[in-house]
């Protein structure tokens, strides 16, 4: 695919993306639809958030989505990726985010969710993803995100978790998934939401800005290929650090627009690849952070529309642009 500046950029294909999302549920006679069932709840969140950012939330049947979400809750209080799938902290967050986006928190039994999340806490301040013991800074982020949406950050020992995240910080300013692990843009975005006071903003901002490649796209680690999803992870972190202007916005917008599929709608990881709803939501959210017109402003902490998170009580993170009074 051409990326010369001579060609005019493709416009944002809003209607086609809506059609792409609505078409996702119409492939139920195919194996591939069911082979991804384990992350259906995430799929619903990505579809709903994409639609919401495009001001088309009403396209999904609210009542059906709510009933589906509730049917994924297990006895332990956590949510599985679909009905009859085991609980995991990641799907638990997705469930809460969906209910919040649909303004249906009154239907959610929050105390059971909180009990589940508390049961994932480990002695060193980290969290396991489920009862089988995987530990990752992603799960610290999920916990803080989820409890802040529920207004219950008091349910865990936040300073201890912050201490754990600090132990995952590297010399380049970024954060890894465990102490000693290589910095990764995704982990970094997640880590700083929980522990902004730890950050050396200029050093980290430099490392993040260096993720941009000549074609405008961003990568997740040094000397790796660009991918639309890092338009979200890198950009959300830069936005929290108030350093979005450290990258070339126009060339990134162009890269995201070129990654759209003009035949089917949807956005791919990079131009010319198959589109999917994961890259669609992070592409659209990235465009929103970049100030692309016609989209809802997005909250870089949650990847949810600001009109939703503006209703939340303030928590420890404060930065320019968001919650600024």
């Amino acid at each position, binding site marked *: 695919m051409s990326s010369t500046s001579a060609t005019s950029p493709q416009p944002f294909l809003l209607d086609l993306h809506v059609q792409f999302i609505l078409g996702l549920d119409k492939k139920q006679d195919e194996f591939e639809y069911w082979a991804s069932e*384990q992350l259906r709840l995430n799929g*619903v969140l990505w579809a709903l958030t994409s639609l919401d950012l495009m001001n088309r939330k009403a396209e999904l049947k609210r009542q059906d989505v709510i009933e589906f979400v509730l049917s994924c809750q297990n006895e332990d209080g956590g949510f599985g990726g679909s009905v009859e799938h085991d609980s995991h902290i990641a799907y638990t967050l997705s469930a809460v985010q969906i209910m919040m986006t649909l303004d249906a928190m009154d239907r959610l039994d929050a105390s059971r969710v909180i009990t589940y999340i508390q049961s994932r806490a480990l002695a060193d301040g980290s969290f396991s993803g489920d009862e089988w013991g995987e530990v990752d800074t992603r799960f610290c982020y999920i916990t803080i995100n989820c409890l802040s949406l529920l207004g219950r950050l008091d349910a865990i020992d936040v300073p201890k978790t912050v201490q754990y995240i600090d132990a995952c910080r590297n010399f380049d300013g970024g954060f890894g998934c465990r102490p000693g692990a290589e910095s990764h843009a995704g982990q970094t975005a997640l880590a700083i939401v929980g522990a902004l006071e730890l950050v050396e903003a200029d050093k980290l901002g430099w490392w993040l800005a*260096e993720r941009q490649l000549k074609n405008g796209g961003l990568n997740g680690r040094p000397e790796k290929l660009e991918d639309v999803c890092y338009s979200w992870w890198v950009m959300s972190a830069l936005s929290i650090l108030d350093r979005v202007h450290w990258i070339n916005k126009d060339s990134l917008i162009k890269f995201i627009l070129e990654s759209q599929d003009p035949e089917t709608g949807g956005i791919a990881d990079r131009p010319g690849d198959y589109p*999917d709803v994961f890259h669609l939501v992070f592409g659209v959210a990235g465009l929103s952070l970049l100030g692309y017109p016609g989209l809802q402003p997005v909250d870089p902490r949650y990847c949810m529309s600001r009109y939703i998170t503006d209703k939340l009580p303030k928590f420890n993170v404060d930065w320019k642009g968001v919650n600024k009074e």
Partner: protein
Amino acid sequence: MSADQHHQKKVKTTNEEREAQRQRSIKKLAEYKGLCSLVSAKRKAKEYDDAAFNLTTKLLSLNPEFYTMWNFRRQIILDRRTRMDTEAYQALCLSELQLADAALKINPKSYWVWNHRRWILENMPEAAWTRELKLLGRMLDMDARNFHGWGYRRYVIAASGARSPKEEFDFTTEKISQNFSNYSAWHYRSKVLVQAFADPAERAKVIDNEFELVRNAIYTEPADQSAWLYQRWLLSLVPQDMDRWSKELESVQELVEIEPESKCKVIMQGQG
């Protein structure tokens, strides 16, 4: 909803090809759904028998990301453990590692499969660390940047004590000499260097050599970020050594003249 896809080039297909693909998919789905309903009944009845175990094997071969099946499998393994002698249980765990080998061949970045490996090692009578190190060598040969592989390597080394920090330092030398761009190896090097060389005099000597290695890397691939980032870390180890700082600055200035587009501009601005 489709799963997230990475690096799959879109190919033009004819209507006939699409229809044939659709028919195959529909047939495969019938088998898959049949297995799902059988296993669902077993899970609800908490039946941890051989039939249940074999169902998880089949389902995971069709869909290795079906994490609830890995969980159910581990429940069955825990149940079997109570009825097996140590030798038989050890053999069962080894066969689980083989199953995970096969799953990683299909998807080397599956969190669920790496997690299953770790759980097996932590729950087997005699953890097969040597086997794991061999596998890890192969994984990082296939993809030298696989962060699951590097993370798992750190886990295996820490849990087993099978290799010293110095040996791991030498391992990163090997990886970096294969490819200067391997930032994962540079990163790991920064972690093992301080463990491997605790004695101040010895460390000072090593750091000298490191600056030389970085210089070689930078002159070989000036546009590559890996060595620049590592150089920045090295300089942070010698904050008071003004000779070193001016020497590095000189070297950078030389390079700017030869390679005006290289990353060193940033370093000069950053440190200057």
